[in-house]
């Protein structure tokens, strides 16, 4: 599993074999893309442009937690492409033999400390989160943002007792937006997309960044179109969209 994770991390946005214009697929087709919830905004924007470049094609998205989507794919959900928020989740799909070819990493997301606007608790860095008077929400370690947060805190040698281990990154962000916690560790992209929150970058985030792999699925109803989507996501134009949203492009 570790080897597979390393491979996924190394692959990068290399050209996917057998690209082409997807001519084998008939018009009036629907491309189904399962993607991590954190990709919602960027993928929808990319989807509109993809539809413009592929007349007669419709792109449908299933956005949810990566682990949930992986479970659905492994149970036979009919999707063409899967984009996950971490390598570990993609591995669970690849190991089950449900990807066609090697997953490639197309963006990277780093953690930031999100605080309510005005930063009422006066947080300046990761060490402040260890203060027992500071209410902190983290993601649960079962989900990618929680695994990354644990890694970052370990690297910094900071021990945090959170008030809650949230089920996903959006739930953690909501607690900050409502002012119910003083800080949460969330992705940079979520800070940029959130209302009434400020982001505080920290050095240890670099070592705990999440690579986002994408892969065409083995049972894809439209494999040609699916490969086009992966190429599009890796293109310079698409990478600009990701950078604007706060991702680190590859």
């Amino acid at each position: 599993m570790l080897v597979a994770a390393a491979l996924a991390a190394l692959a990068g946005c290399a050209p996917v074999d057998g690209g082409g214009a997807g001519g084998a697929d008939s018009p009036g087709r629907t491309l189904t893309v399962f993607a991590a919830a954190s990709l919602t905004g960027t993928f929808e924007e990319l989807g509109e442009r993809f539809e413009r470049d592929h007349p007669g094609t419709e792109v449908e998205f299933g956005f949810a937690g990566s682990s949930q989507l992986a479970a659905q794919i492994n149970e036979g959900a009919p999707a063409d492409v899967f984009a996950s928020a971490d390598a570990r989740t993609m591995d669970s799909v690849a190991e089950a033999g449900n990807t066609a070819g090697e997953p490639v990493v197309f963006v990277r997301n780093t953690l930031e400390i999100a605080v309510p606007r005005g930063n009422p608790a006066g947080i300046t860095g990761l060490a402040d989160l260890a203060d027992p008077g500071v209410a902190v929400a983290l993601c649960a370690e079962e989900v990618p943002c929680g695994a990354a947060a644990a890694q970052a805190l370990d690297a910094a040698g900071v021990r945090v007792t959170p008030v809650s281990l949230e089920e996903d990154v959006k739930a953690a962000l909501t607690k900050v937006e409502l002012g119910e916690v003083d800080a949460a560790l969330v992705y940079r992209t979520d800070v940029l997309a959130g209302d009434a929150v400020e982001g505080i970058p920290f050095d240890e985030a670099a070592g705990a960044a999440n690579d986002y792999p994408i892969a065409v699925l083995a049972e894809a109803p439209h494999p040609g179109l699916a490969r086009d989507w992966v190429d599009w996501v890796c293109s310079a134009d698409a990478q600009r969209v990701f950078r604007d949203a706060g991702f680190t492009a590859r």
Partner: protein
Amino acid sequence: MTPGSPPAEAAPPEAAGTRRAAALRVRAGRFPWPLVVPALIGLAFLVLPFAGLLVRAPWASLGTRLLLPEVRGALWLSLTTATAATAVSVLLGVPLAWLLARTAFPGRRLVRALVTVPMVIPPVVGGVALLLALGRRGLVGGYLDAWFGVSLPFTPAAVVLAQVFVAMPFLVISVEGALRGADRRYEEAAATLGASRAVVFWRVTLPMVAPGVAAGAVLAWARALGEFGATITFAGNFPGRTQTMPLAVYLAMQESPESAIVLSLVLLAVSLGVLVALRDRWTGAL
């Protein structure tokens, strides 16, 4: 009345019952397929998913998984909070049901609709609403925090509040239905005999609707036990403090479906056991 010659119109109840059953048999004649077939399909639909769980359960590692301290912690928290939530629901819900069933006041229909709102809105939204009302920046919670230093979110008390919010409507609806179905002449008779309003309520009304209260309490308990959305939103998720069984199941699902299945089976077994035991003991009228 001479012994041995009971009047024909006052036949013993068993005899009357037998005669009615015989008449029904004669009239119906055939097996009631139009009812039994959809009933069986309905039953299969409800039971089949559990069969799916049982088939996929990792029986070999069941024992070791059950002994994990997190599992016991979550189960204990679930049982205690659901019971506390049921107690609060009864204490507040029975008087509320009485108000709706026995008194007339302007806007009663609106109040009844409001009572059922938590049954309709997604529990996650209920959780956000609770945060906005009782959170430390909330409508009421802000004052609790400022005046008493009390912050409810992320505490076991918040788990109970979230459960009361979603479960109490079930109790209110059940008790209100029982009150409307109860014969008011008994209450009137007690009142004309000099019983005060409180005495009438305690000695006449409450015993009459006891089966409705019990049924409502069981429904509320079951709803509270399975509560997820409002809990994870308002009380957060922390093992031993606010992580109830449904939350533990959801998070286990992210990593290992087997663990989630085991936790679900535990919850299923415990709740079935409690409900069956209660049914025999004090909800015979259900």
